[in-house]
C-alpha cells in the first residue's frame, strides 16, 4: 500500500529511462556511415572470373536457372564440355529473392554474392542485369551521401 502510494513502480521506470538518457546512442547514421555486412551476406549476385582473368568461370550448364525458385535467371551457352561458355546470362533482380540456391548449386563456383544491397531503384530496367553488368565492379553502384 505504501509502495503503491509512493509510486515505486512508476519511479523504477522513470529511473531506467533517465539512465539511458546519458548512455551512448546505438544509432548508425545510415547513408553517412555504413555497416560492413558479414562475409556470408547474400547481396547482389555476380559472375566470378577465372584465375587467369580470361573470362567467367560459368560453363552455362543451366543448373542455376533450373534451381531458381523465382525463375529469374536466363542462361544460354555455346561450346561443348569444358569449353562451354555463356553467351546470354540474365538475372532479373526485381524478381530475385536472394535465397542463394543458384550459388549453392553451381558446380564450378561460377556465381558469388557481393555485399551490395542497395537495390532500391527508380528504374526497373536497371535491375535487369545482363552478362556484362554481372561482371562489373559492384562498388561503383554504391550510393554515396555527401556530408
Amino acid at each position, binding site marked *: 500500500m505504501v509502495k503503491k502510494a509512493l509510486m515505486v513502480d*512508476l519511479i523504477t*521506470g*522513470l529511473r*531506467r*529511462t*533517465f539512465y*539511458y*538518457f*546519458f*548512455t*551512448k*546512442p*546505438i*544509432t548508425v*547514421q545510415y547513408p553517412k556511415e555504413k555497416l560492413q555486412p558479414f562475409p556470408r551476406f547474400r547481396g547482389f549476385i555476380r559472375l566470378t572470373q577465372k584465375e587467369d582473368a580470361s573470362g567467367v568461370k560459368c560453363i552455362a550448364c543451366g543448373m542455376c536457372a533450373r534451381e531458381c525458385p523465382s525463375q529469374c535467371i536466363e542462361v544460354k551457352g555455346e561450346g561443348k564440355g569444358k569449353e562451354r561458355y555463356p553467351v546470354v546470362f540474365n538475372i532479373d533482380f526485381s524478381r530475385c529473392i536472394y535465397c542463394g540456391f543458384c550459388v549453392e548449386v553451381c558446380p564450378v563456383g561460377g556465381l558469388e554474392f557481393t555485399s551490395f544491397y542497395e537495390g532500391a531503384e527508380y528504374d526497373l530496367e536497371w535491375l535487369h542485369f545482363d552478362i556484362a553488368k554481372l561482371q562489373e565492379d559492384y562498388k561503383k553502384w554504391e550510393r554515396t551521401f555527401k556530408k
Partner: protein
Amino acid sequence: MDVLMSDILTALIRIIVVFALALLTVAYLTYLERKVIGHMQVRMGPMRVGPHGLLQPIADGLKLFFKEDIVPTEGYRLTFYFAPILCLVCALILFAVIPFDAKFMISRLNIGLLYILSIASVGVMGIILAGWSSGSKYSLLGGLRSAAQIFSYEIFLGFSLMGPLMIAGSLDLVKIVEAQSVPFIVYQPVAFVIYLIAALGEINRVPFDLPEAESELVAGFHTEYSGMKFAYFFLAEYANMIIVSAIATIVFLAGWKGPILPGWMWFLIKMFIFIYFFIWVRATFPRYRYDQFMRIGWKIMLPLVLANIFVTGVVILFIGGY
C-alpha cells in the same frame, strides 16, 4: 495623448516579443521532445537537417505549410476550418497574463489564474468541434473522449490550485509569486502531485493521451487534418504544455524568484524542468484506458484534492496564514 501612445507601443512590443518567443519555443519544443525521447531510447533523434538536426522544426513547418489542404467530403467545412484556429488562439492568448519576471508581462490581470482556467476550457471546444466536424468515426470517438476527459480534469486542475491560492489570498499571478517566501511546493506537496497529473490529462499527454491515442484511434480528433490545420493543433498542444508548466512554476515553485541569476532566467529554468518531466513521462509510461482514467480522476483524485483544500483551510483558520 502621448502617454497613451507610448503605453500602446510598449504593450505592442511586449506582445510581439512574447508571441514570437512563444511560437519559436513551441517550434523548438518539438525538436527538444524528439531529441530527449530519442536519447532515452538509445537513439539520436533528428540529425539530418542542419547540425544535429537543429533546423528540423523549420523543415517540418515548411512541409506542413506547403502540404495540400484536404477537407473530407463528409466533413462540415465551417467548423472543420474553425476548430484548429480556436484551439491555437485559446492556447496563445493565455500567454498574455504569464509573468515571466516581476516586470515583464503583457498585462497584469488581477484575476489571472481564473482567466487562464476559463480560457483553457474554451480551447477544449476546438478539439470537440474538430472531432465532430471531421465526419470520421475515429475522430468522433477522439472528440468525445477528450470532452469527457478535459472537462473532468479541469475540475481537479482548478481544485489543486485552490490550496496555494488560499495561502496566497489572491488570484493575481504576480501576487501569488510574491507571497512565496518559501515555494508553495513545500506546503502543498499533495496539491502539486495532483496538479501534475491533472495537467498531463489537461494537455493530452501520455499516459493520458486518450483523445489522440495513436494505436487505438489512429490519431483521434486530428485523424482527418493535414497541412497547416494540423500544424495549428500541433502548436496548440505544445503551447498548452508551456502554459501548464508556467503555471506550475508560478504557483508551486515561486516563479522568477531565485538567487544570482536574473528572474526571467530562473523562470525559464523552472519551466523547462516541468517540460522535461512531461517529455520524460511520455518516454516511460504506457497509456491508461479511458474508463480507468476517469476512475482515477473521480475516485482517487477528487477526494484527495478536496481533503487537501479542507486541511489547508483548517490550518489557515487556526494559524492565521503561514
